[in-house]
């Protein structure tokens, strides 16, 4: 179900009423409407909560969700799908902690409304694995210790993946530019760079310090 095939119309009055009572995430809340038929009540709930259907493809799995329009992609990933590898560090588009791939491009998922990601392919850190097997970029981060606390790491790895998807032979400068939107307060940067260089095949084994 997408926006266009939405079966219902709702009145401006009801919409306003709904939004004003519940400006919220994806919880279905009871609006202040009483004594109406159950069916109507159910519909009203949905309308009142201002929810919209969302068809999201995450890590190759299709999800059909009802969400409040103001919900960000990061919130849906974390709170609804419990894909908590995607981190919210600033929630303001300043740090890259929430980086995911949208049709292969790195984006800050805290800055995108989930509805805008509808029908697009989202890849999160969890989606890089094959079963329990780590992706080569993830392996490079382990081998070259491209992390300390690990909180920024999913975003760093996804950013690296975006660089390498575009260009399998990036220059060091391209890597630095591509990674510069991902902050790491532990400042594991030298090893992050080394990990990405290794993932690009520029480093030989054994240079793991």
């Amino acid at each position, binding site marked *: 179900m997408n926006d266009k095939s939405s079966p219902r119309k709702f009145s401006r009055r009801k919409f306003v009423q709904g939004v004003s009572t519940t400006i919220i995430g994806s*919880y279905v809340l009871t609006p202040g409407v009483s004594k109406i038929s159950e069916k109507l009540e159910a519909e009203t709930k949905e309308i009142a909560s201002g929810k919209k259907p969302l068809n999201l493809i995450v890590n190759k799995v299709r999800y059909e969700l009802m969400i409040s329009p103001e919900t960000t992609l990061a919130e849906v990933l974390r709170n609804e799908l419990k894909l908590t590898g995607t981190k919210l560090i600033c929630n303001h588009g300043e740090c890259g902690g929430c980086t995911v791939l949208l049709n292969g491009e790195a984006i800050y998922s805290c800055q995108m409304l989930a509805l805008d990601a509808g029908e697009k392919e989202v890849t999160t850190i969890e989606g890089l694995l094959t079963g329990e097997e780590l992706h080569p970029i993830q392996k490079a981060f382990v081998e070259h*210790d491209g992390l*300390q606390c690990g*909180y920024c790491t999913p975003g760093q790895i996804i950013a690296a993946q975006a660089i390498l998807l575009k260009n399998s032979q990036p220059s060091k400068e391209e890597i630095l530019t591509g990674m*510069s939107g991902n902050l790491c307060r532990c400042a594991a940067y030298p*090893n992050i760079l080394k990990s990405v260089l290794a993932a690009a095949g520029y480093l030989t084994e054994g240079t793991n310090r």
Partner: protein
Amino acid sequence: MAVKIIKSKNFVETDFVESLAEVPVEEYKPWPENDKLKIVGKPVSRIDAYEKVSGTASYTTDKFLPNMVYGKILRSPHPNAILKNLNTEKAEKLEGVLKILSFKNCPEISWYYDTSLLFDKNLRYQGDEVACVAAISERIALEALKLIEVEYETLPFVTTASEAMMSESPKVHGWGNILDGKPDTYVRGDVEKGFNEADQIIEEEFNTQVVVHNPTEVHCSLANWDDDKLTIWDSTQAIFSVRDTVAASLKIPSSKVRVIKKFMGGGFGSKLEAGKHTIMAALISRDIGKPVFISVDRKEMNLAVGNRPDSNQKLKIGVKKDGTITALSHISYGSVGAYPDSAGCSWPLKTIYLCPNVKTEEYSVLTNSGRSRAMRAPGHVQGTFALEAIIDDAAEKIGMDPLEFRLKNYAETDQVFNVPYTSKKLKDAYLKGAEIIRWKRRNKTPGSQNSEVKNGIGMATQIWWGGGGPPAYAALKLNRDSSINVFAGSQDLGTGTYTFIAQVAAEVLEIPVEKIKVDIGDTDFPYCPLSGGSMTAPSVAPAIRDAAEQMKGKLISAAAAILNLPEEELMYSQGLVSSIKEKDKKISITEIVSKTRNRELITNGAREKNPDGYATNSFGVQFADVSVDTLTGKVKVNKIAAAYDIGRTLNPKTLYNQIHGGIIQGLGYALFEERLLDRKTGKVLTTNLHSYKIPTIKDAPEIEIAIVSQFDPLNSSIGVKGVGEPAIIPTAAAIGNAVYNAIGKRIRSLPITPDKIIKALYS
């Protein structure tokens, strides 16, 4: 296993803490150099790396419990105000709101060393807590905050230490603006006499800025009750401190509180104490019977959960022509914000250089701004910046090479306590670092290059404690398949605690690291100290060794019983107990454990005591190579060479990473990080990561590290000294000295921004 209880004195951050500790009676010989070891000292990959790179590591922010609800905090928008009235009626009516906690309904819980309450009507900084709303979603809680009606009576305020020192200034607390009413003072010898003996006296004044920890994971807690038992998942560096503060605040026994932290997104000192939000989560959860998660956002991170205090420092040094330092004096003022904390920064000056006459006065001053907290090497970072600058200036004044000057005033013993060091290899570090950076290249005359972009080289020394000590314990369980579980109430902040614990156990029992499962971050496990003060590895690693050595002993006695041989005839090697005399008489640990009815063997290890009459300190030096663009004023750090005596390297992979991190954070401190507070409004201007700049990957310089120490032979049977804090201490000072060497002008205030360079060059 025999243990005894002793009085133990350890340095925790900047204080001596005396405690009773259980220590092993038996003491182990220190291990030999790392190249004679199999697992310790090797670049083992983090054992928790899989979880971190796969996204499955569960941080406190990632924990979801059924029925869990969300709390958000309303904070004062004023730098100084009295809460006149609070009306929560409208907010309470909002659908989905479950509880609003404020001074109206919250028990009086003392906070900030009894100078305030959990909810106090005196709001002394922008960010002080007014109320907390719990609701079924974060968005509803945030919406409810807007519906709370608050009446404030705003009061005059002070934002800087110099202003706060003036008698007519508004008082942050009734008792005045200077902590304890006087400075912390220290005197050694007779400074007046010392200055009289000097050929040259140099006096300088330095200023450093407030910076904010900003770890990536925000401060947060999830509290859940089962009957009268409380479990808290917390992003903390100190699970036991949180447990005890929560228990004391709620007036319940500590045994009813369990604090868990498996992974955390950094702390850097800001998470060393229980947060108010943790208590609020526990109180609300008890009240509504649901798990409550409270987190702060990035703005609150920059207002209300700690910072490194600023400093104004007046230094004076007396030197003779031959380079002898005759006297040192230091007066410092630092603003700790609205509640007590220490802003002292004299310690490096008291101890690094040989000097018989020293006097220091440290003022911690209260202002109407967010309270400071320990931040990676509290005091030492500020103090070292100023000290190492004046040391360079003194050397120049008498025409001596700065490195030679430092070597001339090398202190062989601790001058404050008048005791020897357990080890000190600073001299080796100086020479090694100088070699890496090629010290001889430096400008003999600072600023003498004629180019637009001028290069310079500078150096700075660091001293820190980092010897750790008891009490620290660990339990070790050997299973039938010869795998091992280690349980210890320690913390891994990204520092590699999980990994070194596995390495130490694997080293003693001569089994692969993969066979060791490490579980930490839980107050149900044996006690370990908080993770601060660079004391985790030196405290915990020896306890792990003790537990593993005892396990060896247990295996030998079990094998003796099974094989009917005297214990003395048996030896342990690589998972086998065998007879020294008859080689074919042997038994594997799997067989031994299988023959015991309990299916496992358990030991408890303890950290041994520190040797009496010694000081343990880490030492290091950093050399910076910088370029300064004299047209734009921009400083580029090309390279940092870091040479350290940190005792034994447990794991070079995680060690180097941690040193990189300290250096790059130090670079941010030196060049651009700064919390800006508007003096007119008392409000913070830098409340996000856009305005509060932290280093990016592009700011990272080339870094070359040399560890000059093998192991500390006296501090513990492992001989490791902590490195977390040493890594950041000298960076800003080394960069400052390198900038001076490049342009010949001394920038005496941090951060060294382009405008300051331009002003110094052209005015």
